[in-house]
């Protein structure tokens, strides 16, 4: 008998306590309610959750908030998710999607030990930012890659590694999401996010040296010397010459590949293309000899 009353009292008192607490909590929750747009969670669920900062925001959640707030996605884009993710988000929010050409990071330097002779030895902290602030680098080229891997360190997607033979970073096209972390990390601005062609075809000037031709070539045998040859041969006016340096505008380039064999220093890289025909190869070689 005693036993059962104890149980009953316990149940009743706890239920009362619970009910009172529920009422108090209900009013507190009403009083301090923070309204959050439920669409933010839906948008965030679509984003890649890499929190890489490639969109310019601190993380995916911040981008989701901005996307929900914005009228027309102006300037907002997730480079990692690309057009697919943006289309999904647009359908969640019932707005028109934005599309951008997919991009991929490329390194505008080929100065390996073989091509770019070392003139001094650096034994300080292994950081490109520090080496760059201290002096012009181990070679005569004051524009090229240091190779201490600041870019590798910041890459969240494991798309960069230092090639142990050339000492230069290599981009894994499959893993690169064009988040742009390497572009920001490189103290010499050697990375560029370029249009990603079908089949990962690439054609670009892999040099950033703005010195005059003679100086550039003396310090690196694969430097762009600003000779204008590629500029003259390009039928689409896609090549811009600035500060003794050629640049291929990927919006105008149609991948005709006429420029690459013209380059006397092989500063223009082409990858992902089928091998050139025999004949074309020969003319390219003779061009190089005459140059």
């Amino acid at each position, binding site marked *: 008998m005693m036993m059962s009353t104890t149980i009953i009292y316990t149940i009743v008192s706890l239920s009362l306590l619970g009910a009172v607490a529920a009422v108090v909590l209900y009013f507190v929750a009403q009083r301090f309610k923070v309204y959050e747009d439920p669409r933010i969670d839906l948008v965030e669920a679509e984003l890649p959750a890499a929190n890489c900062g490639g969109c310019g925001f601190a993380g995916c959640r911040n981008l989701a908030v901005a996307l929900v707030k914005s009228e027309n996605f102006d300037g907002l884009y997730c480079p990692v998710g690309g057009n697919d993710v943006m289309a999904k988000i647009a359908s969640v929010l019932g707005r028109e999607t934005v599309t951008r050409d997919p991009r991929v990071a490329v390194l505008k330097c080929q100065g390996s030990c073989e091509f770019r002779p070392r*003139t*001094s030895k650096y*034994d*300080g*902290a292994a*950081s490109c*930012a*520090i080496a760059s*602030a*201290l*002096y*012009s*680098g181990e070679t005569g080229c*004051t524009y090229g890659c240091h190779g201490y891997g600041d870019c590798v360190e910041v890459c969240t997607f494991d798309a960069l590694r230092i090639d142990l033979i050339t000492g230069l970073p290599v981009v894994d096209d499959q893993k690169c999401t064009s988040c742009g972390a390497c572009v920001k990390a490189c103290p010499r601005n050697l990375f560029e996010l370029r249009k990603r062609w079908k089949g990962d075809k690439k054609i670009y000037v892999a040099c950033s040296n703005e*010195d005059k031709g003679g*100086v550039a070539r003396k310090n690196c045998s694969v430097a762009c010397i600003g000779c204008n040859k590629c500029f003259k041969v390009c039928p689409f006016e896609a090549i811009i010459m600035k500060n003794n340096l050629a640049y291929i505008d990927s919006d105008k380039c149609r991948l005709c590949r006429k420029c690459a064999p013209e380059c006397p220093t092989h500063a223009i890289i082409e990858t992902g293309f089928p091998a050139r025909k025999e004949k074309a190869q020969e003319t390219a070689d003779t061009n190089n000899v005459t140059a």
Partner: protein
Amino acid sequence: MLKTFQRGGIHPPENKLSAGKAIIPLPVPGTVAILLSQHMGAPAKLLVEKGADVKTGQLIAKGEGFLSGNIHASVSGKIARIDEVQDVSGYRRQAVYIEVAGDEWLEDIKLDSVLDREIKPEGPEIIQKITEAGIVGLGGATFPSHVKLTVPRGKKAECLVVNGVECEPYLTSDHALMLEKAEEILVGVQILKKALNVNIAHIGIENNKTDAIEVMQRLATSYEGIRVHALKVKYPQGGEKQLIKAITGREVPSGGLPVDVGVVAFNVGTVFAVYEAVQKNKPLVERVVTVTGKNVNNPSNFRVRIGTPVSLLIEAVGGMTENTGKIIMGGPMMGKAIGSAEIPVVKGTSGILLMPDTETARSSIQPCIRCAKCVSVCPLGLEPYLLMPLAEMGIHDSLEQEHVMDCIECGSCSFTCPSDRPLLDYIRLGKSNVGKIIRSRKKQ
């Protein structure tokens, strides 16, 4: 009890190999490359063209920025080309190449070595002359002297501090200058006193230069209002803030200038240049450079024309030995290793040091053991062990709160670290990033 600054400081081996040696004038080289940026501020604006004939002392570029100074031809001859030359950092900068023909100076420059005690020009006229002569701080910071002499409104200079400390190991250029040109320096001090309208000047000299202290003290008695102080040897006493603290006991506030505590400080080399500019009409075209090193045959002090390539200086002391690890422009603590011996001497070059490779190799970096030695030696009371990871991770607001901008880059922390951590390298990186943020904030 000798005076010194209280907080922090270190005692690196002095190695003053060229101490007490006379200043030898180095023969004028065949060509010189005169950089257009030899001061803190923006490069000077070029006034001459290729092919023009110039005389020694002729103005070839005008400093137009706030922290810029005039540049003069240091030799006479023809301007061969206006091209780029590597500066101390290895980056290419604009320079004027002059092919030397004879040594013809401008007519109004007095080349005699007669001591001229009488100071004719008045205050503003003195500052004008110093501006024209392109004088910058010869201690290494290359801060234009005329800017220091123009005291901002609302502030008042009460005394002049002259820096004869030369706390960097190996370097002896200021020491040699004080022994040979003591009277000229004292007249220079009087000129600066007149320009600043102050009555008292303090000259600080570290106690390892007893001969210089003796000479200066003896001669200073015949000049009014100049006191020579012997200071306890401690690095970095040659830092402006440390020297002011040691002599006057005043502390320059964080982010402030010496004039905030009523002091204006000059290096003895600068004071000598001021003497020559005001009394002899001679612009800054040459300076004393120590060329030294443990394996150097004959460590010496040279009077060198600005723009002379470093290789000629090395040749003058008997050439570089096989086992040279680094060529350092400046002293071993704050100097910079250079990548090429063709770099020209600039106004801020106080020494060329050839370090043997056994001493230059860096040891591998070990983890921080929290011994706080870096904190105890920091003359500014900063916490280098903390600043380094903050800079490494790019936490710039915390760096600013921790007063990273107060760092004078003396290198005491890196010198003393038992784990051989590159503290200063990272702090410098943090400083440059925080500096950029502060500047962009000011613009807004």
